[in-house]
């Protein structure tokens, strides 16, 4: 399996990640090395199975849906880049808002 330039650019778009033109070829090479390495798992026969692994206690999936109070030393307004009248302020989405 190999990954091409277009595929890396597509994945970068899905991941909302700008990729610098200067690094793209190196990135394609490194992604190929990683993906070819992890493809070693193909050696494991598909019919060799075990009970699905669950991280943490089984109760995690069945816990009570109870609200827990989270004491904060600072309000969200103190950590957001911009916060106005109780809302996170984001730059306007030009194409939609111009209509």
């Amino acid at each position, binding site marked *: 399996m190999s990954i091409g330039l277009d595929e890396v650019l597509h994945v970068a778009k899905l991941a909302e*990640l700008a990729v610098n033109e200067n690094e793209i070829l190196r990135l394609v090479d490194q992604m190929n090395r990683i993906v070819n390495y992890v493809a070693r798992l193909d050696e494991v026969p598909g019919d060799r199975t075990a009970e699905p692994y669950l991280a943490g206690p089984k109760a995690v999936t069945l816990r009570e849906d109870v609200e827990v109070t*989270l004491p*904060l030393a600072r309000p969200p307004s103190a950590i957001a880049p911009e916060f106005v009248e109780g809302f*996170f302020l984001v730059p306007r989405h030009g194409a939609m808002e111009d209509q």
Partner: protein
Amino acid sequence: MTAGQRGSGAEAAREVGLRLTQAEPLNAVLHWSQQLLEAEGARVDAMPTPGPLASMPVALKDNIVTVEQPTTCASRILEGYLSPYNATVVDRLRAAGAMIAAKTNLDEFAMGSSTEHSAFGRVKHPLDPTRVPGGSSGGSAALVAAGVVPAALGSETGGSVRQPASFCGVVGVKPSYGRVSRYGLVAFGSSLDCVSVFGRTVDDAARVLSSISGPDPLDATTVDRPPMQVPKALPDLRGQTVGLPQEYFPADLEGGVATALRRTTEQIQALGGEARLVSLPNSVYAVPTYYIIAPAEAAANLARYDGVRYGKRRVGPDGDIRALYRTTRGEGFGEEVRRRILVGTYVLSAGYYDAYYKKAQQVRALIAEDFQRVFASGIDLLLTPTTPTPAFKAGEKTEDPVAMYLADIFVCSMSLAGLPAMSLPVGRSEGLPIGAQLVAPHFGEERMLAVAQVLERAMDPLAEVR
């Protein structure tokens, strides 16, 4: 200076401040101040009853959130970020009388095995500045090894405490998944992440782990069990059966590591323990399994750093919201984090999910089942090398991500299986520390630490093995 040998909090604050200043060339610390240290000392001195960690200075990896100091995860994207709450482990350390001494450097968002992937520069090995301290918790390991603090917290996703503990010659303990609250640990791989502990001695590490363990209503993945007890001292290892998994002792194991592990095995037998060869056949797939599951979880967890909710914001050239996300993330994350986000997004994308992610989940279950089978066969603990080599040179593996990932070859299977494991220094090869790894069944930390204490008493960690 170990637990029980400390003076007042004020004295500890002065001493640690001096040592932190002397240790600056290591670049192991991202945030500390004498003023905060003195406030911590005064708080401890005012406690009506000294706790089990009274006046013990403890450093925190900078992916554990604190109200008073920034939490950056060694990333530009979180530069200057101040958390609105403390991690549960921070509150528990303080309740036990510990002093928060400093926030330590790490590989960005805990992604790395050398602490070279920090936006704030690499951490140097305390014994040889041309080498790496391991990672990703390299700052915490270096501070403990340099004698600045007797204990520090790190985090493990795939060996990020045991591997640097081995490189730096200190004790590193990863608890069972669910033993310690992750509330306030910045998420990387949520099914793998564990707050973990470094100590100069097994006793210091055990005391810290005991103080921070136990269920937490703020983290539903903690297990409803009482906190871990500090283990009672064992006179010897009679009655202990230690398994040696053959897959962890390859023929090409570095000479010093192989000799140190052979000596450790002989010591176990001399102390009355039984050593038995066992097999964990699916462990050979642990690194590729880990490097599918961990990046997949990271890609999801790090989606929150978009420049809108917190952290640095970079507005893109077109001024729209997608450009804002992409520019902020592209400029804010470093190379290794970007690479893992891309790998994670790729293995989760349509057309590849079954081939990679689903397959990795299948193999993860097989790896976990191997451990269950071996422990069910009468094995109390497993013994393996922690790392295939001693600390490597800075820059040696940065151009080849797969070579870097293989530094974790002996540690990430236990993370995939959620098991407790630890690294204990057992000798040196050409002056560089070597660690032996002990692995226990789920929630078997007390026996693991008790056995480690017996070995610690019997072995000289400074002895040259060849």
